[in-house]
């Protein structure tokens, strides 16, 4: 019996060791000689309806708009050592530009960039770069979150509601920045509105996201927006038929605002950004570094307000001046008249009534992405919750 059992244990051990190894044999695409070879590495599937799909659209855009380029994508790459193998294989095959689109790809990409000086590795999200062939890329989504908050506040005000909800992913500066931008926007249309929040500690967990949205709605939130991948808040909102119902604001991918209870959706439009980076690298005019694009790069969108988009159901009965404000704001950021620092222009109050940014002052780049200014040398930082948010600091 004991012998049999030990044989069994060995079998199980082999199975556990071998099966994932087979599962992780990623197909590395081939390069095409004489063309600019570009690869986009995705953490999720190309049809996740969120973050990865938005990047996949960016790859498709490059394919259609870049001259003499071979654009490929690889999906479902887990963070950590597996991703390092993928980046190394891509660089070894001779890919000229490699985009990695998940926070956890940062260190593997940095290591591979060191080994392959002829390949350019561009990391989306994260904070590292080497100033030569490893660059960092992110954009000012706070604009679109601000506008989404502006519309959510208007919706609540019109319907006699005053609680908003935010499900944020992790206690990191990015999530506080986006939540604060949303609340600052909401206060413009609904000064009495407050916002309850919940950390879900995941970027992508569809069922957990639905449960968290439900918990916020049950606690009284009227409009819930998310920092995670799936359109859970809008889908869960459909379950509330009583009274005014509920509204959700999903994130990331323009095609995910299909639910009738989707108020609007701030999304990424990576295509033009990617294309200009690759063109810049080919011309020799682009130096990888910290690249944080603002609204004028046209890499951001808000469902209902971009070219060829119709207003979602929940915005149709809003007063024209509210919609006009949003349209003008988008026109202004695209024209470069407003930048991301204008959102946090003083006076900015936190939720304890303290002044974060005094009248007439502006934040700087380092403030937007830093908790602890003593380490990073910034002035205000992002370790505060805006007035009206019912939360404590992480």
């Amino acid at each position, binding site marked *: *019996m004991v012998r*049999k059992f030990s044989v*069994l244990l060995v*079998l*199980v051990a082999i*199975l556990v060791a071998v*099966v994932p190894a087979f599962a992780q044999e990623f197909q590395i695409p081939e390069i095409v000689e004489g063309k600019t070879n570009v690869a986009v590495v995705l953490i999720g*599937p190309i*049809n*996740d*309806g969120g973050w990865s799909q938005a990047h996949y659209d960016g790859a498709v855009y490059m394919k259609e708009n870049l001259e003499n380029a071979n654009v490929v994508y690889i999906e479902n790459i887990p963070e950590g050592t597996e991703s390092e193998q993928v980046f190394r294989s891509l660089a070894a095959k001779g890919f000229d530009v490699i985009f990695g689109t998940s926070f956890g790809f940062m260190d593997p990409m940095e290591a591979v960039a060191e080994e392959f000086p002829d390949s350019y590795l561009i990391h989306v999200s994260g904070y590292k770069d080497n100033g030569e062939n490893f660059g960092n890329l992110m954009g000012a989504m706070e604009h679109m979150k601000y506008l989404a908050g502006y519309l959510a506040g208007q919706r609540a005000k019109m319907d006699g509601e005053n609680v908003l909800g935010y499900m944020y992913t992790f*206690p990191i500066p990015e999530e506080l920045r986006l939540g604060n931008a949303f609340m600052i926007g909401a206060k413009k249309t609904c000064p009495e509105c407050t916002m*309850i*929040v*919940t*950390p879900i*500690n995941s970027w*992508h*967990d*569809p*069922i957990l996201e*639905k*449960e*968290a949205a*439900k*918990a*916020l709605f*049950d*606690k009284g939130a009227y409009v819930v927006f998310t920092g995670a991948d*799936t*359109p859970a808040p809008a*889908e869960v909102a459909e379950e509330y038929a009583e009274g005014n119902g509920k509204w959700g604001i999903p994130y990331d991918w323009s095609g995910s605002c*299909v*639910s009738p209870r989707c108020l609007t959706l701030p999304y990424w439009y990576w295509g033009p950004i990617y294309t200009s980076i690759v063109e810049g690298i080919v011309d020799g005019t682009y130096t990888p570094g910290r690249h944080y694009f603002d609204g004028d790069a046209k890499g951001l969108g808000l469902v209902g307000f971009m070219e060829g988009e119709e207003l979602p159901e929940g915005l149709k009965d809003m007063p024209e001046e509210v919609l006009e404000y949003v349209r003008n704001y988008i026109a202004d950021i695209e024209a470069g008249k407003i930048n991301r620092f204008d959102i946090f222009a003083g006076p900015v109050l936190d939720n304890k009534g303290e002044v974060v940014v005094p009248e007439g002052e502006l934040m700087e780049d380092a403030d937007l992405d830093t908790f602890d200014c003593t380490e990073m040398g910034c002035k205000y930082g992002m370790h505060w919750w805006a007035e009206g948010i*019912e*939360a*404590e*600091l*992480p």
Partner: protein
Amino acid sequence: MELFQLLAAALAGGTVLLFGMLGGIFTERSGVMNLAIEGYMLLGATISYSASASSGSPWIGLLMGAVAAAILGILHAIICISLKADQVVSGLATNFVGTGVSLVLGANLTSLVGTVPLLPSVAFPKLLELGWIGEGLYTLTKQSIMVYIGFVLIPIAQWYLTKTRPGMHLRAIGENPEAADAMGINVNGLRYVYTILGAALAGIGGAAISIAIYSGWFSELTTNGRGWICVGLVIFAQWNPVRGAFGAYFFGILSRLVLDLKIPATLFGGLVANPFFLHPNYTFFLEMLPYFFTLVVMIIGANSAKAKHIGAPSALGRPYSRGEKGKQ
């Protein structure tokens, strides 16, 4: 009201585990280990979602989900009943097959979101006229039909196992297949039946996720380990459906409680400050709670089972061949 919301979410979350857990109990009571619940559930979730989309009827989807998982159950049954191979290895392998097949078949299903017909929900708006308690009961009873089906299934399963003749046969082949055989019961035939039935039930559990309670297909995150929690629940339940149902619903309560504890500034109507509100980083520990609790309960359960001499069916994991009693 908050209590009713908590219980409502617990019923929904527990139901998802309930079917897989009952499937596990039926299969294991017959003497066949069932470690493939996750695979069955995932396959059930995929097939029911896609069948519901293509046929336009969620009920056909539910049926197809159960059938698909049952077919996978036949594989497990052949390997460990007819071929008498090791049931643990077969269970793990079947689980991998189920997971792999559903990931391949489900690769393009994510784009169907919002267009797939779902199983109906039940609500009693009349309750709203009864004041705050009516409002609470309305919240509690506004559930997917699968929650009701699962709830009704618990006493039926208990009654079947303990009070009926076929249920006695089921217990007999799991406890003492030799004696059952001597009584003229077709041991291996019945083991086939319950292995396949258990798979079908787990498949229904998967369908309860994808076309009812959470609605959607999200690759392996659709079940996200819930099948393995079912495996744990079967042991916690000591192979008893009612006990298992308590476990499943309690797990549902804990899952929702974790979320409820993250949001408010104070607890118990303002009596105490909420530590998880004051320190959002503590929520990482909070999320361990359901799993930590499972461990604690298993330890307590194992001790009490030892004291009362109850526990796993005696013949669990042992293939049956006539005339080979005692030969391992």
